């Protein structure tokens, strides 16, 4: 296992955002995380890459206990991350943004080498044409690619993708899915949070479902999408609807 999350809980005051979450991710797989709004998906990412420590539980990356380490320590060890709300350094160029990612990554590269890596990564995500533009001038789809490029420039072993498809049009979604597949082909393990169901279901080897901070299902996309608890979480409880219909017809 490349990553193990063991009994991780996170509380914010009275809110139990994560409730004893346990999961393991295998090397080389695409692991999808889904769940209704507020289920705790991004909170889970935040505890994995050290944005904040879990209230309880352990996180192990390649056998090492990394619980509570800050994000830059995880980046050095090979855990990359994109954020749902992209925040590029707007006053820097696209190339400079990606160079920053390379400087503070796993290889801790000196500037010249980092610049080279940045060029390679821009090629990889298809942003070469925008290399010298200010990051603030990019459109949504390009900003999403930049976010991806910045994470990839750190040369991660495991990358956490938080809704990289959100806000993209169908054409852009297709292009982005191509990039995700290419990342996997390079041997990088991927955990992705995604609301776009057809994408996550078609791409993932395994899918993990959170609801109210707790696991409700885990398995292949086929298993998960037919799981009664998952259907209930997304579509509502059929029993309640039945009770309502029986009440109104009598």
């Amino acid at each position, binding site marked *: 296992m490349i990553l193990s999350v063991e009994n991780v809980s996170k509380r914010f005051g009275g809110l139990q955002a994560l409730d004893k979450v346990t999961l393991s991710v295998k090397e080389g797989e695409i692991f999808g995380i889904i769940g209704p709004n507020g289920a705790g998906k991004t909170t889970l990412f935040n505890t994995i890459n050290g944005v904040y420590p879990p209230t309880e539980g352990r996180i192990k990356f390649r056998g090492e206990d990394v619980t509570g380490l800050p994000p830059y320590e995880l980046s050095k060890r090979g855990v990359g991350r994109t954020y749902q709300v992209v925040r590029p350094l707007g006053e820097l160029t696209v190339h400079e943004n990606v160079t920053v990612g390379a400087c503070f990554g796993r290889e801790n590269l000196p500037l010249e080498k980092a610049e080279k890596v940045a060029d390679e990564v821009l090629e990889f995500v298809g942003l070469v044409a925008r290399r010298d533009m200010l990051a603030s001038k990019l*459109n949504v789809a390009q900003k999403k690619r930049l976010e991806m490029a910045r994470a990839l420039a750190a040369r991660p072993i495991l990358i956490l993708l938080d809704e990289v498809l959100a806000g993209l049009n169908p054409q852009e979604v297709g292009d982005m899915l191509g990039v995700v597949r290419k990342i996997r082909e390079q041997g990088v393990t991927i955990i992705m949070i995604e609301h776009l*169901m057809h994408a996550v*279901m*078609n791409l993932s080897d395994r899918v993990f479902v959170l609801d109210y901070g707790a696991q409700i299902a885990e398995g292949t996309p086929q298993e998960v999408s037919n799981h009664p608890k998952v259907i209930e979480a997304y*579509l*509502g409880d059929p029993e309640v609807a039945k009770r*309502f219909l029986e009440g109104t017809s009598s």
Partner: protein
Amino acid sequence: MSTLQVTNLESGYGEVQILWNLSLGLQPGKLTSLVGSNGSGKTTLLRAVTGLIKPWKGNVTFDGKDVTKISPHEKAEMGLVLVPEARQLFTDMSVIENLEMGATPKAARAEFKQTLEWVYSLLPRLKERQNQLTGTLSGGEQQMVAIARGLMARPKVLMFDELSLGLSPLLVINLFEVLVKLKGQGLTMLLVEQNVQMALAVSDYAYVLSNGRVEIEGESRKVMGMESVRKAYLGI
């Protein structure tokens, strides 16, 4: 003819397009539901229809008039009324004061007393609570106040955004029974709901949104059994 007709509507936020060539209609006296997963565009559609955000393309007609570019308060005056998500009540005001705030259209002001009696007959609990501060009511009671405030405007079309969110099953059933009564009185309604099972159980006609488009539409009873509904939510 539809009381409210949306034709080829496109809209979104900033440069992000959310709604794609979306059309739907509300038949007079019917309860229509609009369901779809997170981020499918339900609330955005309501915002574009009411005028809280601008439609980029397409149009909205209400009672046969093109209202695409008409401001939200003018639409409310015409009888197109929204019960918003998370209720948005005046919590430091009493129940009756919240209801007075609902009766802002001219016609509604003129009939205030009769309307209030009618609303209290539908939601008797509110009469008991009329002088209580709204913020001190339970979640279910607050949702009743939100519905009541919408009704006080004497709507021709009443739209609900996420009526059942955060409420217990029993309360949801109670609220939906109120919708059934309103339907019995001929009110045209649009119910935007995350709880698909309940929405399909109560409505006559349903639209299923997925990624800002109408994925499925039909009589609710037929839509209920469709495998494609599960697929629209869960991808495969």
